[in-house]
């Protein structure tokens, strides 16, 4: 297909942002018009990506819709393409961004025009990460996302926003800058940064370990893995609701995607070698951050720590390197994208009404906000992995995968499932049931129509994936198989070389 659909999907939000930037007129008109433009562009992009999914051929593991343009002469080309793994992340992004925009319109009180520009630019950059088929282009998009996110946290965030924004920026910058060295080194070792050709080139044994570590440093910070996860709770707590949603639902997934695409694809020998490291860190993350989450009295912080724990499952799944583990981790990422977005929105709903994130400020909400109590319950159950929700499918597959690879890891990881049930249910109990902690809570209004639609769409998807994950698995299937086969043949090749 010659139609540049991927470029279109990537750059539509940017064009929307430019239009918002040039709208002029009275304050009120500008705000109204920019809201319409933002909603229109993000929804248009969502439908375009659904079109992409329907024209996607899931019987081949080749990259599809590939477009290539010369960018820096004879050196880097602007190359895009998707396979079964990345296409789902594109859909996740285009689905989450309109939700963020709707939520932002409701809760952001000042500089709404700038906020919408930042979100749309962010969407362009995130989509670019999942579509790019060149390491340099990937890095550009990956790193460029720092700018809008920094501004979103810093301008529209809570009281400690400056500290959090700086921490977020510097942590991720330090991590990813090592990846830049690795990318340049790969260029000088192999003579190309084109991902398709790199996947067929075997990188010499002696370079693999260091390069893997450089990529790991970047992805581990972004993922985030223990012990470099400390930026995440701060960033989540201070970011505005829409910012937390983008952060949890999409930004963290860029790291998981990176692990699958680059760590497994380019450095099989090193991935094999470092698997125990990943498993150890992930197990610590799952158990330790779950325990921390139990003790939180700030709702957003609790969900942030639970994200770290859930991401632990993802890394275990990826590095189990079998079909179940890999597919499970992808499903887990998608489902965590939906669930964490939903949970942050739930916190946002009560925060917009009562201006407190403390668990102790609430209680007995079921009496005043029944609809809210219902959706919150569905999301809580999804987060703890109840069968029938998307959370279950992901965790279950990951645990099967881990069991095949290493029984101890699987057993320890399943401890996390129990812990997540503990902190999520306890959170739900303290916020929704019990007695209202203050009489003003009685004034709280239930969900309005926009919020209800947002939540219904999320509930629908979470349950859909939970009951019928087949279409997703079909999309991933061939690409995942191919990835694992490639990994194993390459690994054998490298190991043979060592034995010689």
């Amino acid at each position, binding site marked *: 297909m010659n139609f540049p659909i991927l470029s279109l999907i990537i750059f539509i939000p940017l064009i929307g942002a430019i239009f918002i930037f040039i709208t002029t007129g009275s304050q009120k008109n500008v705000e109204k018009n920019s809201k319409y433009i933002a909603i229109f562009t993000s929804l248009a992009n969502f439908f375009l990506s659904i079109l992409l999914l329907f024209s996607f051929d899931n019987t081949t593991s080749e990259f599809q819709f590939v477009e290539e343009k010369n960018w820096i002469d004879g050196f880097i080309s602007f190359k895009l393409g998707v396979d079964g793994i990345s296409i789902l992340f594109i859909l996740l992004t285009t689905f989450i961004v309109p939700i963020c925009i709707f939520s932002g319109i409701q809760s952001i009180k000042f500089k709404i025009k700038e906020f919408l520009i930042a979100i749309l630019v962010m969407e362009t950059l995130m989509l670019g990460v999942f579509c790019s088929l060149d390491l340099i282009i990937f*890095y550009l998009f990956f790193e460029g996302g720092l700018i809008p996110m920094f501004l979103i946290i810093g301008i529209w965030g809570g009281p400690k926003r400056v500290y959090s*924004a700086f921490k977020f920026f*510097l942590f991720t910058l330090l991590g990813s800058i090592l990846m830049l060295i690795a990318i340049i080194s790969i260029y000088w070792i192999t003579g190309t940064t084109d991902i398709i050709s790199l996947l067929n080139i075997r990188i010499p044994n002696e370079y693999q370990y260091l390069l893997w570590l450089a990529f790991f440093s970047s992805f581990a910070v972004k993922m985030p893995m223990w012990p470099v996860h400390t930026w995440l709770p701060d960033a989540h707590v201070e970011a505005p609701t829409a910012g937390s949603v983008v952060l949890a639902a999409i930004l963290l997934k860029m790291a998981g995607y990176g692990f699958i695409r680059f760590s497994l694809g380019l450095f099989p020998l090193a991935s094999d070698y470092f698997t125990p490291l990943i498993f150890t860190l992930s197990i610590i993350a799952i158990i330790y951050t779950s325990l921390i989450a139990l003790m939180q009295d700030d709702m957003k912080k609790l969900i942030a720590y639970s994200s770290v724990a859930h991401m632990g499952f993802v890394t275990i799944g990826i590095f189990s390197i079998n079909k179940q583990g890999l597919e499970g981790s992808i499903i887990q990422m998608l489902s965590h994208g939906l669930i964490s977005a939903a949970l942050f929105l739930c916190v946002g709903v009560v925060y917009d009404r009562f201006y407190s994130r403390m668990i102790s400020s609430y209680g007995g909400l079921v009496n005043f906000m029944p609809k809210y109590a219902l959706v919150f319950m569905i999301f809580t159950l999804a987060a703890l992995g109840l069968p029938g929700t998307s959370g279950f499918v992901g965790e279950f597959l990951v645990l099967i995968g881990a069991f095949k690879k290493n029984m101890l890891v699987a057993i320890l990881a399943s401890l996390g499932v129990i812990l997540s049930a503990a902190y999520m249910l306890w959170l739900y109990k303290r916020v929704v049931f019990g007695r209202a902690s203050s009489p003003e809570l009685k004034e709280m209004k239930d969900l309005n129509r926009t919020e209800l639609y947002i939540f219904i769409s999320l509930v629908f998807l979470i349950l859909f994936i939970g009951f019928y994950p087949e279409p997703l698995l079909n999309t991933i299937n061939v690409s995942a198989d191919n990835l694992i086969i490639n990994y194993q043949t390459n690994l054998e090749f490298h190991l043979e070389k060592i034995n010689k």
Partner: protein
Amino acid sequence: MQTIIYILPELFLSSAIMMLLIIGVFVKKSFKLVNFLTILVLFFSAVLVINQPEEIVKIFNESYIIDRLSIIMKVLTFLFSLFVLISSKDYIKENNIDKIEYPIIILASVLGMILMISSNDLIIFYLGLELQSISLYILASFKKDDEKSTEAGLKFFVLSALASGLLLYGSSLVYGFTGSTNFDIISQNLDQNSTGAVFGIVFIIVGLAFKISAVPFHMWTPDVYQGSPTSVTSFFALIPKIAALTVFIRFMYIPFINIFNQWQIIIVFLSIASMILGAVAAIGQNNIKRLIAYSSIGHMGYALAGLATGTISGIQSSIIYLIIYLFMNLGIFSCIFMMKSEKKYCETIDDLSGISRNQPILALSFLILLFSLAGIPPLAGFFAKFYIFMAVIEAKMYTLAIIGLVTTVVSAFYYLRIIKIIYFDKPKKEFDKIYNWGLKFSLALSSILVLIYFIYPTILIDIISSIKIY
């Protein structure tokens, strides 16, 4: 007669300086006229340089060279001097430094730099260097009733004279051990084992490092940047770096290329020290000019890292870095000229807190430029650093690359601090509206170029790739 064609820009420039001096003296209240004519002169000199032939020409007993490197650097010098003059017009007027000498001295220092850029001989080089240095001393202390400006001028004079002395001593050693002042002959005669010549080269490098303000010869930079009038600071931060870097490239790659192993270590040290100091020392600064001084030290560290590789791609990356640096700093200084509250120019960073409220476009340009200085993709500053690291890693200098990248993160902190004050803090002051078109033009030009550079990054490579050194 043939040779005159080649030095037409230099002849035009020097006769223009004399003409302007006469006009300035005989026409009353002629600052506006002289300033305007100076801008025209810079523009036409740039046009003359662009029209020079492309082949390498060496004239006056091979002591003066015209090649692609010199043409590109001269054009940059002329154009950026022109931008600096345009953007600082209001500032000059409001600070009572609108004397006719001001543009004329700027022209004189530009002439000195042009001579440096084209020199292929130690004596011509020294002549040019002194012409530019003496003009710069005067410029630094131009606001003569201001204590800080006078102090800056004096400090700069004393230290710079010392550096020039070292340079001269080094040159004489090199002459003594190689028997010539001509670069090509030095290159042939230089013996790797001759300690005297190596000493001479070390002295020369020290002198050059001073001019480019590389650590540990940077002491003058923060004080001079802070003390001088801002219009002069913007000149200091941009234009002398072009000539100094060109001379650095020429010295290292023509006369001294045979003892690459010896000087490489020195340059690597200068580069690492500058990057670290530029990143760390700027953190605590509250005066924006002083902060820019430290940041420019850091940036020169990166440019030197490209030079230290000893490869052609290293030189190209340094030149690309320089060009992008010039655009970014032109923008930053345009922003500083626009930061005016109640008819006073603000110099401390804390004063900036109001601009995102009252001047959103200015704040946005500032934001773009600062992220670009920090080297965040997809802005131009990232590409500048990217090419440098490409070259450095190609030369397998991993330590240098890693230190460079870590300092990038550290320096990101203070750029972010400015952004934080602009965007996150509560506004304190109202900022005045600026109506000067020259200022707006240079700000718009630099920030838009920095923003959209990623669309067609090949453009600079195309320009640079025609440069041949050997």
